[in-house]
């Protein structure tokens, strides 16, 4: 089951198209020919206004949706050739609408992230325990151990979700709006943690963000989507030109940065 880390992109989309079928009305085209190659250890931020296809793109990358056209390769193989479990050993997802069931303790939930690696029908191995510890630390959630989910704030829950995804020890981490529910300090901390994860553990991170201002923090590669097409792709500083942001988001970047109280650039 141990896959050789293949050379070349760990996630590759080739002219992917996708449309939601609607009864009695024309199909709603969401992705109109997306080609995207993500190398191991990259931090990619998908940006774009609501309805630009970011979440659909993630769902296709994780194999939950089958594209109408084009191909998706994960770890060098077509995504549909992996079983669900094999895929889960490689790709972890932090979905937008994750619900955390009441009654569980933090460490019990994070341990669920070990599910795709579980060998025993009954319990967790020492390896699992170590992975859970590491994930809790990386997501800055170690201090939440022992607490029940229903006692946590929104931000604390989000950190638990991140820890759960990290416990999966994926090669690719897909995050859909991971900063929602987080206050500014934790937003910054999360992005810093993702960046650290990328550098220290070589995990490829693809995150959908709604707020372009946040991208100035971690110097990611930014992919800007608009109406199902990639309109810009490159380092944050290069992509987030005021003119582009103004056109795509309908507001000027200086306004955004001013509103979030950080007018300065990275560094």
């Amino acid at each position, binding site marked *: 089951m141990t896959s050789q880390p293949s050379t070349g992109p760990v996630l590759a989309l080739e002219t992917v198209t996708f449309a939601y079928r609607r009864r009695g009305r024309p199909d709603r085209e969401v992705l109109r020919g997306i080609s995207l190659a993500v190398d191991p250890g990259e931090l990619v931020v998908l940006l774009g206004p609501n309805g630009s296809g970011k979440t659909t793109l993630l769902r296709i990358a994780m194999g939950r949706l089958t594209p109408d056209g084009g191909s998706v390769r994960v770890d060098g193989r077509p995504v549909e050739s992996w079983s669900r479990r094999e895929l889960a050993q490689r790709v972890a997802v932090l979905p937008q609408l994750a619900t955390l069931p009441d009654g569980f303790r933090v460490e019990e939930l994070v341990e669920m992230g070990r599910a795709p690696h579980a060998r025993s029908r009954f319990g967790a191995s020492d390896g699992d325990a170590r992975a859970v510890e590491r994930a809790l630390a990386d997501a800055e959630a170690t201090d939440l*151990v022992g607490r029940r989910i229903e006692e946590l704030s929104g931000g604390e829950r989000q950190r638990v979700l991140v820890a759960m995804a990290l416990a999966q020890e994926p090669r690719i981490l897909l995050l859909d709006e991971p900063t929602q529910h987080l206050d500014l300090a934790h937003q910054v901390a999360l992005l810093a943690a993702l960046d650290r994860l990328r550098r220290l553990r070589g995990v490829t991170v693809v995150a959908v963000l709604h707020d372009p201002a946040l991208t100035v923090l971690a110097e990611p590669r930014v992919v800007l989507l608009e109406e199902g097409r990639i309109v810009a792709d490159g380092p944050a500083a290069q992509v987030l030109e005021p003119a582009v942001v103004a056109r795509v988001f309908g507001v000027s970047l200086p306004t955004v940065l001013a509103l979030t109280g950080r007018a300065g650039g990275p560094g």
Partner: protein
Amino acid sequence: MRASVAARPLVGGPGLGRASLVIGAGIILVVVAALTAIAVGSTEVGLGDAIGILAQRLGIPVTESWAPTAPTILFEVRLPRVLAGIVVGAGLGAAGVVFQALLRNPMADPYVIGAAAGASLGAVLAITAPIILPVLAVGAGTAWLGIGLVQVAAFVGGLGAVAIVLAVARQGGRSSMVTLLLTGYAVSSLLAAGTALLLVNSGRAMSAVVGWLLGSLGGAGYPELAIAAPLVIGGSALLLVQWRTLNLLLLGDEAAAGLGVDLVPARRGLVLLATIVTSAAVALAGTIGFVGLVVPHLVRLVLGPDHRLLLPASCLGGAALLVTADLVARVAGGVPVGVVTALIGAPFFLWLLHRAATASTAP
């Protein structure tokens, strides 16, 4: 790392110590309930007689202090009833947990997607068919593998109804759990109407039909147990090892899929197993209510939602509750056991609702 001290013993879920403690306590509970149920009845025969008779059968010399009928009362009348209570209670407890997790609905019970309605229609058809169509009378008295036609019809009816629900729910496109729930409700209502129609036309079989619908452990003999018990216990065991999938399903479809659950086959397998368990339990004892609804909630309140413990504990809790309820039913002079479980279950359920309501309005 500072995490290592705190997290290490906690990882591994409930831990072997707590798990064995809980399971051990559950087993003791079931054994105590079973021994009490064996010891108590409308005759004087008691536990002492049971021990004496057992000792004698094992070749230990004991003075025969019991009535000559005592062995029959203990081993032919009470014991199969207690065993049926354990099997049916455990099965309903496990199936209840599974349906609540699958449908992510606290009101779900083993009967929610049609197993009970189908089994009832099957059983009532088998009871009344010889009356409505005398030609069928020939087949009604015959036993098949030592099992009455009624039991077979109930089992087949339960499986058939769920199969119909699943097929119809899938016709509507992607079979979401809400669709499944609503389809189950609609199909159950339809089948219940058929059952009611047969009931009013059942004439002299009315008391047999009503008795079956209320549920009873008294009709279960060893031949019935020999068929139903492996189905219920085997099915429950296969459900127990699915605890991880059930936990993941609580996280929602997207998260569960992201963690490697192949949603469609996983759900289908769980529904199939839970339906086999439910149908076998219903075929053995009729439609006994509330066990499958209340026991999982009770256990969840005490032990939390982790299915690694919730499932086996609900099996044991269901067994203990049903054996106890049947004992109460017997002592109360033949009150249907379903009435006793409802008498225990309904107030508990109201309390649960009250508790949930106050919890959500609290600051």
